[in-house]
């Protein structure tokens, strides 16, 4: 077994309160939702109407461009509502579960080959878990990827521990690996954090283990690909989160269509941060208690629910539906309080990665952050701040400028194929000019897809 250590020197760990305790609760709800916006560049084509009965595995919608890419119901029950926004954009498809979890019967192919695996995954709606770089969208099954990456640790703030989540699912995980590794002619990489206990993943066979150390984004698959096997133009890499490897394994091992996943409920204002076992798409509105009014006079209705982490997750409403690919929800305070002459404060309690605040020189255990923007939007000026948190061999500011100016050749040459917006999340956080780096990269990628 190969053992290599990649050191990530640049990056940033943001210390905030509210890490999940190592305790898993079962959580049941009867409201589930699929949010088409979770899938980048997919135009949904609905297969159901309000009031239709569905069972686990019934197609809810498919991609307009490729009807084989199907998005299926995670539970059995009834389509309760199709929530639309502006221009009839589908925001959510809400399913009311009957609690029975009746499922489509699973027929596995007799010969396991790349083609039959892809067919099976497409048929049961599990293909959507496999994503690709470039673009970070659902993998195009016509391509052959040069490798498959599975990042077995998440370095984002308050992220869940995958080894804890997967404990007890060794067989499913191994089966999932066996199946997935048939999809590539190259290697299947498991990327591990050298500082954690990796005994679970180290027992896995048929994989290439790679070790990483350093701050976030060491756990981002983009960083890992950039270090191990950077993407060249025209190449593809597929990646998938460890939990969904087990989901795929379950299908092939137990002939079971089961969208159960364990997520972490985290955040500084959560009273009971812990892990909960849910079915994908669940409404989590009763899964947590919020802390009462704190010293700064914050009230519980001024909270932001985020599906995913605070860097690249998306804001959700009070129903708190978990995103399709998200492994945690984070709840933080809404900000927006104005401070008198704020630019003059020594800044002992404010979080900052910049040395202009004294807090940088004093090690605090963690910060109670909120959503304040802390400043007005300005022109991008300070490239150093990006460079210090961006570990890839890419010039972040130049790439952003190429995206803003819509210069596709420059974007390609500066490495747009190696990144997605989540790789720029830290740049966005530390930017003194408050540039929306993630949106710029997303728009750049969208432009390339439109031109292609």
């Amino acid at each position: 077994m190969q053992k290599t250590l990649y050191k990530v020197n640049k990056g940033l760990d943001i210390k905030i309160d509210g890490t999940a305790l190592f305790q898993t609760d079962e959580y049941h709800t009867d409201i589930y939702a699929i949010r088409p916006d979770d899938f980048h560049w997919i135009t949904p084509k609905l297969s159901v109407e309000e009031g239709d009965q569905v069972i686990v595995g019934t197609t809810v919608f498919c991609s307009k461009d490729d009807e084989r890419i199907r998005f299926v119901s995670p539970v059995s029950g009834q389509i309760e509502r199709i929530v639309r926004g502006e221009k009839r954009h589908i925001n959510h498809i809400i399913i009311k579960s009957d609690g029975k979890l009746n499922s489509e019967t699973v027929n596995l192919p007799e010969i396991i080959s790349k083609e039959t695996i892809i067919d099976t995954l497409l048929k049961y709606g599990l293909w959507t878990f496999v994503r690709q770089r470039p673009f970070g969208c659902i993998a195009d099954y016509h391509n052959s990827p040069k490798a498959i990456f599975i990042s077995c640790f998440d370095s984002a703030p308050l992220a869940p521990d995958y080894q804890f989540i997967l404990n007890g699912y060794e067989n499913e995980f191994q089966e999932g690996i066996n199946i997935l590794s048939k999809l590539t002619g190259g290697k299947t990489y498991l990327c591990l954090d050298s500082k954690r206990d990796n005994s679970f993943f180290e027992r896995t066979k048929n994989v290439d283990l790679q070790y990483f150390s350093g701050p976030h984004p060491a756990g981002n698959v983009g960083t890992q690909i950039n270090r191990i096997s950077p993407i060249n133009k025209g190449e593809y890499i597929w990646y998938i989160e460890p939990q969904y490897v087990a989901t795929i394994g379950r299908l092939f091992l137990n002939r079971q269509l089961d969208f159960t996943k364990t997520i972490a409920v985290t955040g500084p204002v959560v009273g009971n941060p812990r892990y909960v076992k849910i079915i994908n798409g669940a409404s989590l509105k009763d899964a947590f208690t919020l802390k009462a009014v704190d010293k700064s006079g914050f009230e519980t209705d001024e909270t932001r629910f985020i599906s995913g982490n605070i860097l690249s997750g998306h804001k959700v409403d009070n129903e708190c539906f978990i995103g399709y690919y998200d492994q945690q929800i984070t709840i933080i305070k809404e900000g927006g309080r104005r401070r008198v002459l704020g630019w003059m404060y020594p800044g002992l309690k404010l979080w900052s990665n910049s040395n202009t605040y004294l807090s940088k020189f004093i090690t605090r255990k963690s910060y109670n952050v909120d959503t304040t923007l802390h400043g007005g939007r300005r022109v991008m000026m300070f490239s150093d701040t990006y460079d210090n948190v961006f570990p890839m061999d890419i010039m972040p500011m130049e790439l952003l400028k190429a995206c803003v100016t819509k210069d596709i050749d420059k974007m390609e040459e500066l490495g747009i194929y190696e990144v997605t917006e989540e790789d720029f999340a830290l740049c966005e956080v530390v930017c003194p000019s408050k540039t929306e780096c993630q949106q710029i990269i997303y728009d750049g990628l969208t432009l390339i897809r439109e031109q292609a």
Partner: protein
Amino acid sequence: MSRIEKTSEKLTRKFKTNKGLSHFYALFDAIDKFLLTPDSTTIRGSHIRDSVDVKRLMTTVMIALTPSLFFGFWNTGYQHFLSYGIQAAFWKCFGFGFLKWLPIVLVTYISGLAVEVFFAQIRKEEVAEGFFVTGMLIPMILPPEIPLWTVAVATIFATLFAKEVFGGTGYNFLNPALVARAFIFFAFPSVISGDSIWIADKADAFTGATPLADVALGNISSLPSIKDMFLGTIPGCLGETSTLAILIGAALLIVTNVASWRIILSVIIGGLAAGFTFNLIGTTPAMSIPPYYHLLMGGFMFGAVFMATDPVTSPHTNSGKLIYGLLIGILTVVIRVCNKGYAEGMMLSILLMNVFTPLIDYLSIQRNINKRVSRWNSAKSNKNSR
């Protein structure tokens, strides 16, 4: 919501909706955001943001400038009284200098901010903080006896043609403060050159030549002592004479990471290297002065610490910063030593390197691109050979 927040909200609504007042919205907004941090929250992307903003960074630069500024107040008074042979008290010197500086800085801010606010209003943008530093820098690099109308004309010219025509702070490619000085230098040379202007209300009998002028004329023997030059008790522009005060500011800028230590260091190394090389040639008196004299004379350190490090007009890459800094240092000393007509080279060499900054950045970017493209090509040829 506190009372002050409520007042601000009420006024904001008034300035937005009232027809007459809405013309002054940019001005109101700038003052409002100066007094209170903005209440905006994250909408897209990351949900939390760093507490730092451009205002904070610019404030840090302002704080870093204060040692030089305060020393400049005192020195302006000290030089004045010295020319009359009077030993004046500390506060008397300080007050004299302050009163010399005050009208200049007021003229700078009023004329410059008028342009900034006007453009912010028609562009419907917020007033950028860049000018607060520029407005502070301009009086510090001018002689204390500068006519106020030239300051106003130069500031307006610099803000308009070095910054606003390109889109405002962040889009300019020349340092606006230096453009203002260069404008005065070329348009009104008499008010910024010669021996008579560096000491405020100088007694006629006193020479008042700056060390650089002495060097240019070959009067090496009349140079002030190293201690005087380091502490800054010499005639010169208001804020640039004290190397010590500048170094205190530099320490703050480097610790807070606001200015690049790479640029500051490489400018110094470049200057020393050029000075040393001229020592080896040594045919004129100016060539044979010790290299470190160049650091102590004129605006060398002030330029290295506060002008060359402007994040907008300096290169973005680390290697680019080193090249840029080295060339500034070398060019400054070359201009000082080889050009009899103009004693100070710092201003022009920084402006020249500002112009070359995009080229330096281009080379660094191209290196990154070439690396990637050659990786693509080798991957392609590997595939084909298989």
